[in-house]
């Protein structure tokens, strides 16, 4: 096994990856706001819970991604699992579905 497999991440890699998490989550939150504004003309009040749900997923991914590398030296990789990728995936899928819904319903 590589020495890097059991080591705590160090150097620029964790920082670069954490920044990538943060900018993707922030872009998702911004996109959710724009889509909520646009789709509210068609979806009405339904756009609000859809927006809040999407925003919640994006916020969860932001914080999970931010603290993904604050680990104890004994377990350097334990917190780095699939939860943060999954919630961010949900945020983006929810965003696309909201806009699709606004597009296909009559009058959209």
């Amino acid at each position, binding site marked *: 096994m590589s020495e*890097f497999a059991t080591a705590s991440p160090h150097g620029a890699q964790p920082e670069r990856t954490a920044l990538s998490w943060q900018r993707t989550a922030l872009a998702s939150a911004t996109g959710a706001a724009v889509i909520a504004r646009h789709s509210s003309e068609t979806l009405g009040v339904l756009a609000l819970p859809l927006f809040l749900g999407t925003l919640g997923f994006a916020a969860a991914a932001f914080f999970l991604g931010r603290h993904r590398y604050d680990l104890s030296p004994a377990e*350097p*990789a334990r917190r780095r699992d699939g939860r943060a990728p999954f919630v961010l995936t949900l945020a*983006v899928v929810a965003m696309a579905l909201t806009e699709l819904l606004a597009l296909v319903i009559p009058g959209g």
Partner: protein
Amino acid sequence: MSTDRWPAWVYAEGEEPDYRFSLANERTFLAWLRTTLALIAAGVAVNVIDLGVPEGVARGLSTLLLGLGVITPATAFVRWARAERAMRRETELPSMGALAVVLTAVVLLVATVLAVVAVVP
């Protein structure tokens, strides 16, 4: 091997890979999500901006782009998980499969339709 890391089908076997590769896998996944955000933005733009195309065509193109906005992140997550598992098992990385072809075909189709509409009086 039992694990509290999720999903278990990724983390229940194999050994922890070199963290540099694991982080690169995460960044690739995040790049796919940002690509998806661009596709969704394009889908909204085609629907909102008057590009001079018939409304039905604009809605069709927008639906195609937004459909990719649903499929691409789900596929990106599966690709990330399969790559992580492959690295743990020290086996070959999975390919992108048909997604890259579908993505390219749809984007080219949308661009072609818009280009034709722009040049044909």
